[in-house]
């Protein structure tokens, strides 16, 4: 079944990626100020869905001291949502049970869908020059387009800054912190499509560094993020991991930004206490980046199927859709 799943923030949210608070009082890795990202990572969405599916199917035990899958449910859980964490670099396609695919996250307001896209439409690229472009006048990266109507917006029309200052209890030093969280303005919600072989119900879920609450609404929908750039440029709809050497030789030009990816890896120790460590950082091309006349080599490199099933490396290109 294909669904359109929307997430409405019920409180200010904090999406992390790289910088988090770190350990209390940690001089090196900790940070006094943490700023939320605008979107959650696709891996966070997958994790949320797997957990919610298990909850709805009754496979997750929740007690005050934590939540886990009882031994008696383990086999069924593995069948249901797959085993092990998502591996960004897996050479094979991982299995996530009833979750067949999820699309990149986007924004929705009413029946309009918005994606991030660099503001190339306001300019013409010719002979190495973006005509009319002056970085002092415009932030070309701060742009969202309505793919159902002719409209473009800046971040300030969608995201509201919420600043929170506090004091972490128990730390002698470095205890003051500042959070820059967001709320969505104007009845905007997050959204994504998902192919799931299960009757997923509406629910309240948590997402993000702070476990912020969202109302999740699930509707059957056959829709696609089928936006095509009017000039035939390749548009990244989801963040993308591209690892060819000398990418500049595989494209005429591109307007791109970088986003980092990091998640928690669990490390089991002999004492059976699970420790969480941050994984190494992977650097991705941010959704909304465009590539002009990409070579087939580049497109081949983009088509990493394991990543595409959970909404990474999704792009549109005239004549080809993935």
């Amino acid at each position: 079944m294909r669904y359109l799943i929307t997430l409405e923030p019920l409180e200010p949210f904090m999406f992390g990626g790289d910088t988090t608070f770190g350990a209390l009082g940690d001089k090196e890795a900790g940070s006094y100020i943490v700023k939320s990202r605008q979107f959650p990572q696709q891996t966070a969405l997958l994790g949320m869905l797997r957990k919610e599916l298990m909850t709805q199917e009754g496979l997750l035990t929740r007690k005050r001291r934590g939540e886990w899958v009882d031994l008696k449910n383990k086999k069924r859980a593995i069948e249901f949502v797959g085993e092990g964490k998502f591996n960004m670099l897996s050479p094979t396609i991982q299995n996530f049970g009833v979750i067949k695919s999820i699309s990149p996250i986007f924004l929705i307001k009413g029946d309009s869908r918005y994606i991030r896209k660099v503001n190339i439409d306001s300019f013409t690229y010719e002979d190495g020059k973006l005509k009319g472009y002056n970085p002092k006048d415009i932030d070309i990266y701060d742009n969202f387009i309505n793919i159902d109507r002719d409209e473009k917006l800046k971040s300030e029309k969608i995201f509201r800054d919420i600043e929170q200052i506090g004091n972490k209890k128990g730390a002698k030093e470095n205890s003051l912190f500042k959070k820059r969280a967001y709320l969505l303005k104007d009845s905007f919600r997050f959204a994504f499509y998902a192919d799931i072989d299960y009757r997923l119900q509406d629910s309240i879920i948590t997402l993000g560094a702070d476990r912020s609450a969202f109302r999740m609404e699930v509707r059957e929908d056959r829709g696609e993020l089928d936006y095509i750039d009017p000039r035939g440029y390749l548009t990244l709809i989801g963040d993308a991991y591209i690892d060819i050497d000398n990418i500049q030789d595989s494209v005429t030009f591109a307007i791109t930004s970088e986003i980092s990816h990091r998640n928690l890896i669990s490390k089991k120790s002999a004492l059976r206490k699970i420790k969480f460590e941050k994984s190494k950082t992977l650097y991705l091309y941010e959704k909304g980046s465009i590539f002009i006349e990409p070579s087939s080599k580049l497109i081949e490199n983009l088509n990493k199927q394991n990543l595409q099933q959970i909404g990474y490396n999704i792009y549109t290109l005239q004549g080809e859709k993935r």
Partner: protein
Amino acid sequence: MRYIALTIGPIYKTLQNAKKTRELWGGSYIFSYIMKKIIIAFKDREFIVPYIKDKSIFENKNGVGLFHDRFIFKSQDGDIDKLAQTIDEVLKDISKNSTISYKFLKDYLQINYLEKDIPDDANPILEFSPYLDTLELFYRVGNYRDNELQYFLKNRLNSSFLVKDAFGKKRKSFPSLPEIALHDLKEGSDIVEYIELDDELSVYEKEPYKSKIKRYHKYIAIVQADGDNMGKVVESLKTKKDNNTDYTTKEFEEFSKKLFEYCKISSELIKEFGGETIFAGGDDLLFFAPVVSGDKTVFNLCDEISEKFDKLFVSNKKDSPKPSVSFGVSISYYKYPLYEALETARHLLFDKAKSNSKNAIAFNLIKHSGQTFGAVIHRQNREIYDNFLVFTSNIKGGSDMDNFLHSIHHKIDTYQKVIENIAQDRDRLKNFFDNYFNEEVHNDYKSFFEALIDFMVAVYSDKSIDNEMRLNIIYASLRFVKFVQGDKKKEPKQ
């Protein structure tokens, strides 16, 4: 005429996560270093930017990065290939002298360049800027997993090749935050001896400093400055024909030379004040400074820098806007993340100081409690500006300064409407304060009131500022004075 133009980055990305002053410095200096090494290979070429005829730019050992993130020079046959080769050699050299691998550098650094033929009478800066601006939009994401540069800046910077290049044998590293913030206590003691490598801030707990420190010693200013209306100046430069009917780029050379002099002089002023320049290239300045130095504040320093700039860039075209300098001054508590303070300085500069008429100082003070205050002071109105400088620096108050300043603030707040009506009149304003602060006016605080009244008259006489802004300027200035002159015991212990 054929030119090669180059741009390098990513500078701001590199400065993220900088927690110590030397990390901020190193992250910036390495770019200046790379540019210097590339330019050296072409030092016999004619450069439009930067000005390299004064060879001291290559031998500078006061720790300041003097090379901007772009250059343009007149190219000859084979230069474009030579450039590619030179870049490779420079990166290989860095990797030989540090823990950073060549592969990482090639992946991480965004070096873009092009060679182009342009008409002889064209303005090379205007011609090439759009190409460089465009090239910078294509950020090539690296395949590395570990940020080797960040590791180097955090762990291997002291006594590194970078420090040696910047300071020669003089220093092991860029000065730490306490060294800068405690500038006016340094007399007679070698503070460097007291500063522990792993715990720089512990020096605040040691004598001879502990008993002498005032509130402002626990704060540091980060200042970012940028020329205003420089685009107009560039537009007016011409490749003139000299007597032999050859086009000459002499005007550009003179322009770049002025920028070089401005950078040099500014660095000296900053050093004299007790500050440390992180970067000085083109019309860009970035530096740390103590809040107070002798009987001057960081605002006096900004004013001095502006004066030097004004002397160098005299506008000779009647109807074009006069070039000037705007400043973003972020003063923050010593435990506040440096990178955040830098971002604040940037925001103050570009969003506040440079909006409207420019030629302004936009400042913001972030206290330990997280509370902030600030204002934009326009230099255009010399009355306000000069009085602001006098008021914030020359005030020798009396006893119980904190309470006194608090009641002034409170009184002005309570009688806002009255003040709106009388503040343009010096006598009436004087009577107002005489009435409410009879004792103080005639005793300890006599000079304070004189300066305050002069300042308020200037602010209220400027019709271009609305009332809310006027009050904001007055309050922010009062709070600044309170911050500098107030009692130490008000600061909570941490």
